[in-house]
């Protein structure tokens, strides 16, 4: 869970890189007029961050699967009990 919070912090960092003054959301407002780069914020970090969010779901899912498996095998998730059971 702390990993996820760190992930959100990193994503916030990247998104603030992409911001420009007085520029709007990176969706083209009309199909005919040319899109000036000073009117839209930078869309590249957004694409990277979508990938990052999806990877964080995957990591969370696998971590939880691991935790459930450990609990099934050893019956507990407490670190001290696990260490003592592993030493047996």
């Amino acid at each position: 869970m702390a990993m996820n919070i760190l992930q959100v912090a990193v994503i916030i960092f990247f998104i603030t890189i992409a911001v420009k003054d007085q520029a709007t959301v990176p969706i083209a407002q009309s199909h005919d007029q040319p899109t000036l780069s000073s009117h839209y914020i930078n869309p590249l970090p957004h694409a990277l961050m979508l990938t990052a969010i999806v990877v964080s779901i995957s990591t969370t899912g696998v971590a939880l699967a691991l935790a459930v498996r450990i609990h099934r095998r050893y019956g507990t998730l407490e670190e001290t009990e696990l260490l003592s059971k592993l030493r047996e």
Partner: protein
Amino acid sequence: MKKTAGLILIIAAAILFRAVDTLPTIGDPQSPSATHVSPRYIENGPKETGAANMVTGVLADYRGFDTLGETTVIFTAGLACLLLLGATWPNRQAQPDSMEWPFGSAVLEAAVRFATPFMLLFATYVVIHGHDTPGGGFQGGVLYATTLILIKLTRGTSIKWGPSPQRALLIASSGVALFAGIGFLSLFFGGSYLDYGVLPLPFPSSTIRTIGTLGIEIGVALTVAGVLLLVFEMLTAWHEKEDSQ
């Protein structure tokens, strides 16, 4: 152990806080992130890709290979969950456990039954219209999975409803195959991998790219939905306690 971790944390936080002062100011139009590569994407993006949503255009067209890698990552995570938790396919015996039985509340059942078609329709809209409005493949896939998970949660996981784990795996693999298949298709017609411009359809170039993008988004949505369903099934299955192994 915890004290040294706390000390390292404070030192790292202090270094980071000092480093933040040296970054360019937020919102500066002349900052390095806004002047090298991105003006080309912003100015030529909607015209070349036919997608008004520049983020989807970048993600599915300019950087389509990254999206393929990401789809592979999420599929691999689903496979890893399957390996970890699926020694046998979950047997759907109705054990007297609180997640297996329905909630027993008519209000919840009625609300879910009312909301489901709208959620599914919205998920389909998000996938298909992702090149013009915020959205795209991932969001639609997550919404699909959320709808099905909601129904499974309120009806109890012992009811045989919705895709079984085998079928969820099939959906996920078909999504990845669709994505990679569209890439290979453009290889057959003489372009590079995932270069949709060379497909011989009787449309202008930006429309062909839109169609290719749509195919890719559908593939990604299928993969994400399948994997999330699979992980949910694995996490909520009932197993007898295993003593050995």
